[in-house]
């Protein structure tokens, strides 16, 4: 409750274009939005770009944001989803060299080889996710990559919590089939 009150205050200040308030919103949501975009696109650079664009667009639109039972995070993720749709429509996306991306981004303490293996694993998962329906993709990206609760996802995609759980179940089931993963393999990975 306190968190929500604080967030409301921050958003109110952000509506007056307060730099500090925007900085705090950025710190709160940038990583989540980046992971969500990565899950849908499969490229770090593009995901970083989409996350940045999300905040710039939020800056343009924040005056229109109203508390109508929709959490701020859901509003932000809707902006990101629109940007991802635009990205696919623009045909500017292209196959990204995974090895190159992994080598460039190894500031997570892993060796370049480890980073490349992790990137390949992520790539495989993202590819599998892209074969799901759009709604299933949204649920998986929001739940597992952005770390949102069922309630937040439900509000972001305009469904009830029960429907989100059902979508999640079907999506995980399909992914299990696509990835052909065995439990023991994943457990010792």
């Amino acid at each position, binding site marked *: 409750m306190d968190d929500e009150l604080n967030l409301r205050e921050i958003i109110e200040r952000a509506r*007056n*274009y*307060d*730099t500090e308030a*925007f*900085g705090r919103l*950025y710190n709160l949501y*940038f*990583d989540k939005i*980046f*992971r969500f975009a*990565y*899950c849908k696109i499969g490229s*770090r650079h593009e*995901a*970083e770009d989409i*996350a*940045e664009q999300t*905040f*710039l*667009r939020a*800056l*343009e*639109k924040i005056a229109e944001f109203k508390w109508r039972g929709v959490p701020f995070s859901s*509003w932000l993720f*809707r*902006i990101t989803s*629109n940007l991802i749709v635009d990205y696919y429509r623009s045909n500017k996306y292209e196959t990204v060299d995974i090895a190159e991306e992994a080598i*460039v*981004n190894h*500031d997570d303490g892993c060796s370049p080889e480890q980073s490349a293996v*992790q990137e390949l*694993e*992520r790539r495989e*998962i*993202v590819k599998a996710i892209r074969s799901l329906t759009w709604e299933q993709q949204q649920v*998986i990206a929001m*739940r*597992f*990559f952005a*770390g949102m609760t*069922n309630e937040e996802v439900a509000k972001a995609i305009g469904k009830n919590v*029960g429907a989100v*759980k*059902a979508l*999640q*179940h079907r999506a*995980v*089931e399909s*992914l*299990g*089939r696509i*990835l052909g*993963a*065995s*439990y023991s*393999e*994943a*457990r010792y*990975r």
Partner: protein
Amino acid sequence: MKRDIDEILDRCIEDILSDRRTAEDCLLLHRDMRSELEPMLSTILRMGKAGQIMPDKRNKERARERLLLAVEQKHWETGIDRLPSINEIPRRKASWRLVLLRVAAVTFVFVILSGATIAMAEESLPGSPLYPVKLAVEKARIMLVRDNSKKSKMYLNAADSRIKEMAKLKKDDHNYSRLANEVEKDIEAAKKASAKNADKEFESHLNSFIKKNQNVLKDTLKKAPIGARSKIKRTMEKLNEFNSQVKENKVRGNKIKSPGSGVQGINGRRPPSKDRGRGPGKNNSKLKIKALKGPQSLSNNEGP
């Protein structure tokens, strides 16, 4: 049954993602559904790991800086905290009591402060105990001058001092915005005073002031904290605006002085009808801000 497995899977996901339980614990808890749950939990484990991806720190930091600059720009564009200019503030009639009070204050400042203190205060910076003395002496000197031309030059000198102080500040000093505001106020005051009686001497004084300070302000802009940059940019705009206004007034004055038109001053006259409204007012400053914004402007038709 379908509903049940939706719920059970969701609980397992919550527990695994929040590290309350392992996948093995979940399978032990729901032995009867093991065959169904097992492949799904393995997928969840893999996705949990994949979902921990982080953006590149440097790119994230750069994007943050760009965003905050855009916020500052927007803040200025929408004019939320735009200070009313001196011209917009309704003028209070100076009563004899106020005049007396001012004279008393000025005398007080000069009597209390010895020459040595004033000399020491000349080099002080914001935050120093002598800085208020420096400002008080400066204000008192300006107040004692009656001639508007001299007054406007003194305001420009005060702005010049503030710019010099800004250049001396350290990178993370919090006084940049304050000083930029002061420069803006001094420029406004100089503008107002010069509107009544500007001469060639003032014009050359203004020119040398602009020449001297444009680069200093540009350098200050580079080292100032992000939060203060828009204010410094605004000060630069004010300066350019003032310069173009003085030039425009000069051109108008020449036109008015053409044969047959009689002797008229260069300021405070209405321009010929076709030139009206083209002065360096709101519209011009808006254009300058747009130009500063660059190609990253956003479409208003999209978004949620």
